[in-house]
């Protein structure tokens, strides 16, 4: 299968498929269905779809109410607007009330590009990860996105899914089984470990190819399940390789980097280096120009890997 599509397109397609077999699914949007790709679902299942207009806080309450009367609510907008705009509503009406709502957000990170910092949500994983009851998923390629969406909907409870906008090479097979809470080793290796989620998986994979050319053995881990996190895989990497690099299109605070450090410092301390956005807002530019400026590049991964091996 060589037809690469963006994760958000796969999100839309998957909802359409699930709509056919599960008439309990209710999709909610706040004026951006074209961008979050829920438009097709809206056309086909008009009686299980609403557009609340530009009112994200309201959307959360409506999603919670629908869940409370028995629907599986899937609300979607840009990450800047959920959790960004409506965090308190998510906290109280979804997390604390422990309801079956899926918050599916597109347009995360610097990958948003020209729209600038306001739209570049770099704090969503941090916001969602510390909420009790929430599962947090950030899939990479289209197949993982599809499986993550299916599993999120099968699971009875709150789930946050961070859905990318950039196309990603395909790493997983159609018949592969995705499990919430598991990390996936794309390449095994023994010198250094690279971990990422979403759009950065592709970048650590490319970095590993280059490092291998220099005779360095690299373990590449795709970690779509940020909460619950695959503690075992992290501890093993901490013990079996000389250090870990975590890469994400997110602030270095509170995201996967923090999550990995929490595990290593508790069970098996080792060097863990971060590739992510420092304590600063983004700007306009193409995704790759911004990745370059803010250090989300394979060159930076390689540099940090060598630092680990030198230490």
């Amino acid at each position, binding site marked *: 299968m060589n037809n690469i599509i963006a994760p958000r397109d796969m999100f839309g397609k998957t909802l359409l498929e699930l709509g056919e077999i599960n008439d309990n699914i209710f999709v909610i*949007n706040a004026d951006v*269905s074209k961008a979050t790709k829920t438009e097709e679902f809206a056309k086909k299942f008009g009686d299980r779809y609403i557009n*609340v*207009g*530009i009112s994200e806080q309201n959307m959360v309450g409506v999603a919670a109410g629908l869940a409370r009367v028995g629907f599986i609510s899937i609300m979607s907008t840009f990450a800047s607007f959920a959790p960004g705009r409506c965090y308190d509503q998510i906290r109280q009406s979804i997390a604390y009330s422990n309801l079956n709502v899926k918050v599916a957000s597109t347009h995360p990170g610097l990958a948003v590009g020209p729209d600038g910092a306001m*739209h570049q949500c770099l704090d969503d994983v941090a916001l969602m990860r510390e909420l009790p009851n929430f599962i947090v998923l950030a899939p990479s390629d289209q197949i993982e996105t599809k499986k993550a969406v299916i599993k999120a909907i099968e699971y009875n409870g709150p789930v946050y899914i961070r859905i990318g906008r950039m196309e990603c090479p395909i790493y997983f097979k159609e018949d592969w089984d995705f499990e919430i809470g598991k990390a996936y080793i794309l390449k095994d290796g023994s010198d250094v470990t690279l971990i990422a989620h979403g759009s950065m998986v592709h970048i650590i994979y490319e970095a590993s190819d280059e490092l291998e050319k220099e005779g360095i053995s690299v373990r590449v881990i795709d970690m779509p399940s940020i909460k619950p996190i695959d503690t075992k895989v992290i501890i093993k990497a901490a013990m079996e390789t000389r250090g870990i690099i975590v890469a994400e299109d997110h602030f270095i605070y509170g995201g996967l980097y923090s999550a990995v450090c929490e595990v290593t410092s508790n069970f098996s301390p080792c060097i863990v280096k971060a590739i992510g956005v420092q304590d600063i807002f983004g700007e*306009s530019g193409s995704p790759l120009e911004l990745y370059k400026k803010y250090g989300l590049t394979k060159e930076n991964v390689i540099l940090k890997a060598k630092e680990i091996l030198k230490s």
Partner: protein
Amino acid sequence: MNDVLDLKIKATQIRLDLINMIYESKSGHIGGSLSSADILTVLYYNVMNIDPNNPNWEERDRFILSKGHSVEAYYSVLADKGYFPKEELKTYCKFGTRLIGHPNNKIPGIEMNTGALGHGLSIAVGMALGAKMDNKSFRVFTLMGDGELAEGSNWEAAMAASHYKLNNLIGIVDRNKLQISGNTEEVMSLEPLEDKWKSFGWDVLTTDGNDIEKLIDTFNAAIASANDKPKLILAYTTKGKGVKFIENKANWHHRVPTEEEYKAAISELQELMEVYLNEQNIK
């Protein structure tokens, strides 16, 4: 520059500039920028007390573009007013630019970073309240979208503005009846919109938001009003105003014109410009 004809020429120039920006950068929000071009022109060339050479002048009137996505019209006006070089418009949205995709207060003339909808009116309340407390005479203006009014925060601010008797605050709604996903009344109905604002304690003035002369009269009336209520100008506009094939079409919210569409848009506006310039010569 106060003459109505001069301002029509100005607004047409702003429309040309913003279409050039969007075409050049291949990004931006064309429909809402075109619909608000006349409102911004009247504000910046006729209504507001400002000094582009001294953007931080304490007595300046304040403006917040709550519908931050109409930034192309805003940047075009600010550049034309001399807040920054017009040349810089070419860098819009490109890597390294100051002119990022939504308003940013690092740029001279811009008070607040906006882009997430539903923030402007609360900020305006704070500024207007501050002016009152400091006995300052500056006024505060904010431009909102109509789809934007679905955000509950606007109504929290509306309540506060009348509670604090902020008659130095003028809100403007760009009532083009469209948002991204379609007609506002189909997506999340706002009507009766005038009554809503009135019931929140505001004076409401309605006008044609694409008619320079009427806009000037309406702003004058709002400013002249002697009561203690905040003022809301409900400006009925056409989304995409000035380019026929863009007008009134939801899917032109943030479409980028093709080369052919770009040329057609520019030539339509240039024709209008010719008409105005001829009128000016006759005068």
